[in-house]
């Protein structure tokens, strides 16, 4: 059980760091949004699952569960709103260089 907690915390740190590297490295708004929406959600989800396993069945676990569910709903909606802003403003998505395509 304790190993599972360590594994989930480790995954949380791993995905958080990689997602941030992705946000700093990718070329345009949409790809950055992909990195932030996937890896940000997974890193926090892993950390919350690890904390829930650590606390066992207490009132605290219920509250962490509420925060997790709120997070699972709100985070995709926030990235959806940002992506919609970028799309309505007409920011062109980044494409691969033509010579390497096909």
């Amino acid at each position, binding site marked *: 059980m304790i190993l599972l907690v360590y594994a989930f915390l480790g995954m949380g740190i791993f995905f958080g760091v990689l997602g*941030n590297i992705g946000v700093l490295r990718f070329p345009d708004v949409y790809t950055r949004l992909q990195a932030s929406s996937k890896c940000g959600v997974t890193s926090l989800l892993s950390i919350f699952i690890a904390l829930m396993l650590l606390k066992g069945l207490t009132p605290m676990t219920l*509250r962490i569960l509420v925060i997790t569910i709120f997070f699972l709903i709100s985070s995709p909606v926030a*990235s959806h709103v940002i992506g919609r802003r970028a799309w309505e403003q007409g920011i062109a998505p980044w494409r691969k260089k033509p010579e390497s395509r096909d």
Partner: protein
Amino acid sequence: MDLSVPVLDVVIFVLMGISLMSMVRVIIGPTPEDRLIGLNLVVAQVAGILVVIAVKFDRSIYLDVALVYAILGFIGILAIAKYLRGRQLGE
């Protein structure tokens, strides 16, 4: 269940470092949308720090703070997106 190693401290410091890295994107982002992406990440990670602190010191009041912080951050991002749209349409 007890953790023998101070793992939660490590998690708190890593999350702090990550949120500082997200602030880099907020500062250098060429478009307003890039800055919003950075802000979204910062909000999520600060809420995560609050939850980890609540578990570490066993104070459940921090969980309320974390939930309210997450809700306010979400509403803030919605409001900023709405504001940018209004400004672009010239209202």
